[in-house]
């Protein structure tokens, strides 16, 4: 089998699994799967900003909150249609992300982390605090959003909503995937790996970085808006710093250079606590386990789990090929473009140039 066939069959298998398997699952699990895919979109926004541009962000759930609360206030407070409120929320999050990126343009990666933590706390403890902007945050109360209808179909059924979430996730994954292909991908990789060299080649660093931050924040805002429809209401407890740090930790553990990590990270983020519920540990243990995994992973496998697995799979297939002796010209190409792309530059976190202390 040549790599392209393996990849096609793999994708087809994943597609069949993603569409078919939930049919035999309970409503509750389908709901969780939809939430997992929505969290996966937040992971994808991190893949874009960290894996491809080399900047780190600890405030993705603040952007998600902007999307969610825009939808919440417009749908719940002003009786807009969800489909009108959605683009407004995405745009709001995207523009805010680009604004946050302005100081980021002049900061090295290390100090940017302080800025993003400050942004996360600013949104959590000031913008969304009761009393600051009640027409947006609804004070201490929740916004009631409800489930929208899509092309005349009500998304109230759990399978229907799951398919909707799957569609949204696939669209976002394709968008992020496209960012890595072709010219865009080469430009972003050049910026990540050698900023000065990229600038001398005539790449407009400012515009590209602003765009990458804006799109990443818009993705997170999109996830927030869809998440609001999934839960049916918006409350401020789900968008604090710990959520942003948790999703960043999971994205790093899964491997922030890979699009596949988006789905894996999102599902882990939702099903991890659910699995803990059935063990003697409570769901509260989840962040402790994530944090521990993050520390161990950074020391043991710097690339993240998913690219590591893809690489191992690649080596396995590679050896089989070498053993059979067919298609020697494909040796080294890697079985999937995913693994090839993941192994080709250094690990995402490693690619960020070391920062000199002032």
């Amino acid at each position, binding site marked *: 089998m040549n790599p392209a066939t393996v990849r096609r069959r793999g994708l087809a298998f994943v597609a069949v699994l993603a569409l078919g398997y939930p049919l035999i699952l309970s409503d509750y699990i389908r709901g969780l799967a939809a939430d997992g895919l929505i969290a996966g979109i937040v992971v994808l926004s991190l893949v874009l900003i960290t894996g491809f541009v080399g900047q*780190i962000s*600890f405030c993705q759930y603040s952007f998600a909150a902007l999307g969610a609360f825009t939808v919440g206030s417009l749908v719940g407070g002003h009786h807009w249609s969800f489909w009108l409120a959605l683009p407004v929320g995405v745009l709001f999050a995207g523009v805010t992300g680009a604004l946050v990126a302005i*100081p980021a343009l*002049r*900061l090295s*990666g*290390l*100090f940017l*982390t*302080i*800025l993003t*933590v*400050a*942004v996360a*706390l*600013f949104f*959590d*403890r*000031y*913008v969304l*605090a*009761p*009393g*600051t902007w009640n027409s947006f945050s609804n004070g201490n109360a929740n916004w009631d959003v409800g489930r929208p209808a899509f092309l005349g179909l009500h998304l109230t059924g759990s399978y229907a909503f799951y398919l909707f979430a799957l569609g949204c996730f696939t669209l976002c994954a394709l968008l992020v995937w496209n960012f890595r292909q072709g010219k865009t991908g080469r430009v972003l990789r050049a910026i990540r790996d050698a900023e000065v060299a990229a600038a001398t080649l005539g790449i407009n660093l400012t515009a590209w970085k602003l765009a990458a931050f804006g799109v990443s924040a818009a993705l997170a805002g999109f996830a927030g808006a869809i998440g609001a429809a999934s839960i049916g209401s918006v409350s401020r407890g789900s968008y*604090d*710093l*710990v959520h942003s*740090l*948790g999703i*960043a*930790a999971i994205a*790093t553990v899964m491997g922030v250079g890979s699009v596949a990590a988006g789905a894996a990270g999102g599902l882990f983020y939702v099903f991890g606590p659910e699995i803990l519920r059935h063990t003697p540990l*409570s769901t*509260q*243990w*989840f*962040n*402790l386990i*994530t*944090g*521990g*995994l*993050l*520390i161990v992973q*950074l*020391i043991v496998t*710097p690339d993240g789990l998913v690219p590591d697995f893809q690489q191992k799979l690649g080596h396995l297939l590679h050896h089989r090929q070498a053993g059979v002796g067919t298609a020697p010209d494909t040796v080294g190409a890697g079985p999937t473009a995913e693994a090839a792309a993941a192994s080709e530059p250094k690990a995402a*976190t*490693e690619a*960020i*140039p*070391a*920062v000199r*202390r*002032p």
Partner: protein
Amino acid sequence: MLLARFTPSLLPSFTVVGIVLGGIFALAAIGLVLIYRVSGVLNFAHGAVAMFATFVAYQISVENGAPGWIGLLAAVATGAALGYVIERFTIRPLTGRPALVKVVVTIGWLLVLQTAAGLIWGSTAYHQPVKLVSKNGFRLPLGNVVVGYDQLTTLIVALGLALGIAALLRYTTLGNAMRAVADDPAAARLWGVNVNRVTAASWMVGSAMAAIAGVLITPNINFDTYSLTVIVIDAFAAALIGRLTSLPLTVVGGFFLGLAQTYPRSFSSLSGTPSLVTFVLVLAALGILFRPGARRMRVV
């Protein structure tokens, strides 16, 4: 409408509160700067270490009824031990890797400590503050303000420790070694400095200071796991004013932040105002002091 509540006669007492808060911020920020200078790591777990150590003091002094100073000692020991464990087992193995990776490790520690404390002591419940000295106080003749003995103690401890750290860095062998490692680890090693030991010592001292700051701040804030963990961003704001380098400027930054967070409370009842002040300060410090080409200082 908001300004209607403004009462100038309250300003002196707000000043006292702000100075005390600022002293605590300065204390936390000094620990942060010490760790950053010597090991090059922005320690986001600083607030979480302070929180965990403070809850150990809470367990001993409030739950078990031991005297406050025993709780404080336990907190210092816990802080130093956590600092050592973090440096020895999770930062040192990453020697030679980008600074950002080490920063992400401290984020992992933040999650671990925050969740562990929530599991042990409950994440949202009200916790009684750790009492070190009586709240009774004396009346300052100037401005007719009552200063609590606890507030006075806090200020004295904060200033004393700041001076103590300055003296440590300037007059002791360990302090000289820390400054040497901060300037150039490779050269320090050539001169026979045990870089690993000095780095571990800086993490222990810095984390112990965070623990003291955490215990002292409990009467001033909503004492729960999250509020203490996110003190780290206030400490960063103060430290950024000192460009993460200068200890005297960091102390100034701490007091400035404390006052700037407290004064708006005299005319605004918004609960989020202190966060707004911190955010603006972080933005301003990053924008002005860390712009490319900004003059570098070297003052320890």
